[in-house]
């Protein structure tokens, strides 16, 4: 009984270490292959469109409603001790430092990470990755590098938009629905906000973009077992990617702020 329990734990640890090893192995391969020619510029642009441009509606809605609900909640709370004038500051700081990067990354992980894992995974099970290698093309360079590059670059840009949209959502709720003074709200939004809050949020977004794309590509790259395996890889890409984002968020915040 105890032996079986320990075995289960041991297997779990081994699997965790295996995944971690694969993540860093992939990171190493990316660093080795990214600077080498040939550079497939059209593919890089295509991936940037898929990760960035196509995610705009999703990130727009996510951050808009986050800003709105944040204003709504803090307003009710802060009204209890007459601190309504600080709602703008709370919304601005929470969004730029934390909520816009994390929530955008989680949403993009669901949308883009799953697609990456499914695409690379089905290429693996239909021997298309073997075919790439047979055609003297390094799969990591051809498939993984453009995706990771696009995701690392586009996520901060999405978050720039998310910061603006979310703050506008907060402004809209406070001023239009709850009757706050627009000038006071505006001033309070920027009074406590430093450039650093903004840039650190973007740095976090870039790291999240890197993590979610590498996790998704690793899961796809090591897919086995046909269509079922592709399904498993897709789910795991989102679950592991999201958990990794939340874990990294804590440590990055501890480190950067």
């Amino acid at each position: 009984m105890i032996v079986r329990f320990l075995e289960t734990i041991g297997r779990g640890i081994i699997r965790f270490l295996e995944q971690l090893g694969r993540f860093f192995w992939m990171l190493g391969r990316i660093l080795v292959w990214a600077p080498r020619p040939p550079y497939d510029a059209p593919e890089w642009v295509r991936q940037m469109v898929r990760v960035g441009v196509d995610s705009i509606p999703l990130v727009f809605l996510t951050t808009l409603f986050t800003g709105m609900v944040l204003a709504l909640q803090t307003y009710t709370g802060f009204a209890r001790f007459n601190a309504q004038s600080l709602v703008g500051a709370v919304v601005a700081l929470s969004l730029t430092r934390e909520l816009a990067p994390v929530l955008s990354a989680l949403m993009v992980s669901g949308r883009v990470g799953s697609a990456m894992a499914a695409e690379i995974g089905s290429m693996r099970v239909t021997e298309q990755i073997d075919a790439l290698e047979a055609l003297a093309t390094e799969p990591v360079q051809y498939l993984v590098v453009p995706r990771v590059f696009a995701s690392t670059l586009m996520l901060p840009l999405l978050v720039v938009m998310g910061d603006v949209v979310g703050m506008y959502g907060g402004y809209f709720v406070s001023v239009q629905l709850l009757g706050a003074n627009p000038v006071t709200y505006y001033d309070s939004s920027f009074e406590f906000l430093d450039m650093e809050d903004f840039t650190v949020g973007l740095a976090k977004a870039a790291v999240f973009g890197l993590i979610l794309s590498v996790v998704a590509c690793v899961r796809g790259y090591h897919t086995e077992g046909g269509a079922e395996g592709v399904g498993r890889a897709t789910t795991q890409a989102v679950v592991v990617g999201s958990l990794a984002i939340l874990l990294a968020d804590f440590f990055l915040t501890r480190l950067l702020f």
Partner: protein
Amino acid sequence: MTASPRNRSAQAQGQAKLQVRNLRKNFGGHVVLDGVNLSVAAGESLVIVGPSGTGKSVLLKHLIALLRPDAGEVFVDGQNFWELDGVGRNELRKKFGMAFQEGALFDSMSVFDNIAFPLRRTGRRSPAEVRARVEECLELVQLPDIGSKRPSELSGGMRRRVGFARAIAHKPEILLFDEPNTGLDPIMTDIIAEVILGIRHQMEPTIVTITHHIPSAGKIGDRLALLFGGRILFEGPPEEFLHSSDPAVRQFVEGRAEGPLTVESERARGKTISEAR
């Protein structure tokens, strides 16, 4: 052409294009290749036959370094794949063209882009040159005018032939065919064999084919090798293979369920080996 391919291969003996030495591979304790030795001369066509699940595809993937051997070596023109770095391996792979079992076409691209892929990746060619070569290759596999189609629109036989076209596009010296006619109707099976012969006639490459279809094997190959239980059990010209008295070869040629090649015997063998480890 004065010398028939068969004579030519006999003359070319000694200067092996491909050489496999004592190749071993196991997956999770199950021994798949157990000391395979093989040599293919330049311009020769070798067909590897054997029952399903005996590691024929595994062996083929070792020839182009898609898999790394646990022990033993694979030499291509005297060069060992695994003594090279990633870039060197890719350079050596440019000598190869490989056609995969189900075609393995890139489904994000059109048929044209699939065939143009190796041309665009392996050197500088003008768009006109690429177009001309792609059309030439489609002609050679008897599928003209399908360049604009997507792989998902093609039948199984067509997909495989497009896979052939992609494999030969950059004029490789060595061609590998992984089960080119498995799961196709008898007519398409013969068309595939004809296409391979046509490619052979025009490009004179070294060819290694995997199949378990005996008539095609006899048609395509100068030499047949029977792989079973991780080893080459028999090697020889098609006539010798077909008339061999070796019980394993006889069972395979006659397609009998009973005999030394039955799945049970292999399973038992795999078990004893994993127990012994």
